[in-house]
């Protein structure tokens, strides 16, 4: 028999087992009312920000162009969230701000996932001194409060979307590294890896078929929870002027510019703030829900 058919046979039962485990997790997630609410909230927000931004409002006309006649108007039927100090439609800016937050957040997470997986996999797989050194470095990074780290990187690289994404992703790398490393360590110690090697499975196949399925759960939980903290940091940094340039609609920078007008135009700070709260809450609920659904010990 050649290697091809052995691999296929080996993944046969593994596949069915994985599918039923997946359904079990989905079932448990669905039982958790808050988690389901978070998921629904998330889907609503995605629809509004991604589709709504294109459909209901126009980028140029509503979010960007200054329209000095309509400055700081409170909510009306034409502008349901009111207008800002340059006459721009707040609703439009909130929607596009949502797109920005989601985009920056996702790219940031993907960057940290990539970096973290590389470091974690190397540490876990090679063990020994490499593992020790890498993990010590990760520990030091974890000891630095994320906001300080992000500020330092922005200080060095300057403002801008790419720099912000790099700055934010660095602080999430250690957590992903730890997860990937521990998954590899767990699997490394198990006999079926030896067995797989014995009948010719190459290392890369071992990683794909055996290690990844176990790792996906905790990684997704960490990714969702990191997403909520990342969105908070994006808006915090933009608020103090160290994030995205103020021309790009972003909730944090909207709040920063609204500060001086807020006494008589409270709508300028209410709506972007609520958007942040909803987005962060959605990710928090999903992350918590996933973590509870995946953890076999959390039964009362």
């Amino acid at each position, binding site marked *: 028999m050649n290697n091809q058919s052995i691999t296929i046979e080996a993944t046969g039962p593994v596949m069915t087992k994985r599918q039923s485990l997946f359904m079990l997790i989905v079932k448990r997630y669905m039982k958790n009312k808050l988690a389901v609410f978070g998921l629904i909230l998330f889907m609503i927000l995605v629809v509004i920000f991604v589709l709504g931004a294109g459909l209901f409002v126009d980028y140029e006309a509503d979010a960007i162009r200054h329209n000095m006649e309509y400055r700081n108007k409170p909510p009306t039927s034409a502008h349901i969230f009111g207008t800002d100090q340059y006459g721009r439609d707040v609703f439009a800016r909130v929607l596009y701000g949502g797109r920005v937050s989601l985009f920056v957040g996702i790219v940031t997470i993907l960057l940290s996932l990539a970096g973290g997986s590389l470091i974690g996999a190397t540490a876990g797989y090679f063990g020994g001194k490499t593992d020790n050194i890498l993990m010590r470095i990760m520990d*030091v*990074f974890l*000891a630095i409060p994320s906001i300080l780290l992000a500020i330092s990187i922005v200080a*060095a690289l300057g403002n801008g979307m790419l720099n912000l994404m790099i700055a934010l992703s660095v602080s999430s790398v250690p957590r992903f590294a730890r997860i990937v490393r521990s998954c590899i360590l767990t699997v490394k110690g198990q006999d079926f890896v030896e067995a797989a090697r014995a009948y010719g499975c190459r290392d890369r196949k071992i990683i794909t078929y055996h290690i990844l399925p176990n790792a996906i759960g905790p990684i997704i939980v960490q990714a969702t929870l990191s997403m*909520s903290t990342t969105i908070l940091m994006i808006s915090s940094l933009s608020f103090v002027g*160290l994030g995205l340039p103020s021309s790009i609609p972003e909730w944090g920078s909207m*709040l920063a510019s609204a*500060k001086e007008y807020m006494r008589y135009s409270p709508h300028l700070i209410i709506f972007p*703030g609520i958007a942040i709260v909803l987005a962060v809450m959605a990710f928090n609920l999903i992350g918590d829900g996933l973590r509870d659904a995946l953890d076999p010990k959390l039964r009362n």
Partner: protein
Amino acid sequence: MMIPVILGISLIIFTILALTPGDPAQMILGENASLKDIEILREEMGLNEHFLIRYVKYIGNVLRFNFGNSYRTGLPVISEILTRFPNTLALAFFGIGLSVVIGVPIGIASAVKQYSIFDTVSLGVALIMTSIPAFWLGLMLLLVFSLNLGWFPAIGITNWKGFILPIVTLAIGSMAVMIRMTRSTMLEVIREDYIRTARAKGTSEGRIIRYHALRNALLPIITIIGINFGLQMGGAMICETVFSIPGMGSLMITSVRQKDIPMVMASVLFVAIAISLINLLIDILYATIDPRIKSQYEKAKR
């Protein structure tokens, strides 16, 4: 164990900041400076030396409390930092204090009355509070209590009233963490076997919570307070912008904008050291309270 971590942090931040493009000497002297003058200044500032040598020299200076001079003013950064640091520290400290005083009892009550309405409500409130960005909460509180009601000043901390709103803002955010963590710690403790033993003795539920459960729950709670402190320092720094408070946060932000690298480096290092020291104190406190760890130390001494 703390020293290598601090050194590591300092190295990482130093390395990151060393990547800043641009020539500090040129920035200081201005556009019209001659190349020769720039070169002389570079020599003086030690900018031509190898990166690691510069790092070692920096650490050496730090140990003598010399954190370098500001690129902007030329004055030692330490004086500016020392005036501002107490403000940020006070905000974080009182913020956490308030959140512990309110949040821990709520968390305990929530755990004891699990599944009750009180529990559901406090969990719900905690959830919402974790999703609210501190600076937005600060803005809203400012709007209502300062601008509209006039109870507190909107800017600065000229009198003690100026501290109230920022401390409350930080406390609310921190409270969410305290409530959730206290609740889950208590829930775990209540399920322990020794609580069952206490019940089998005929101990009343109240005494079980106060005497048997609490001392065991306090230990993880103390650790959580330590971790939370780091987060609150970060939060305090952002909130300084909302309330126009002269603290480390506003200092750091302006220095970043002005590319005043020594100031940025020193501020970050200062805050990082402060957080590490607090965590060290927490660890020591933990070791004195937990009899298991205490006896390890005593055994080691012998």
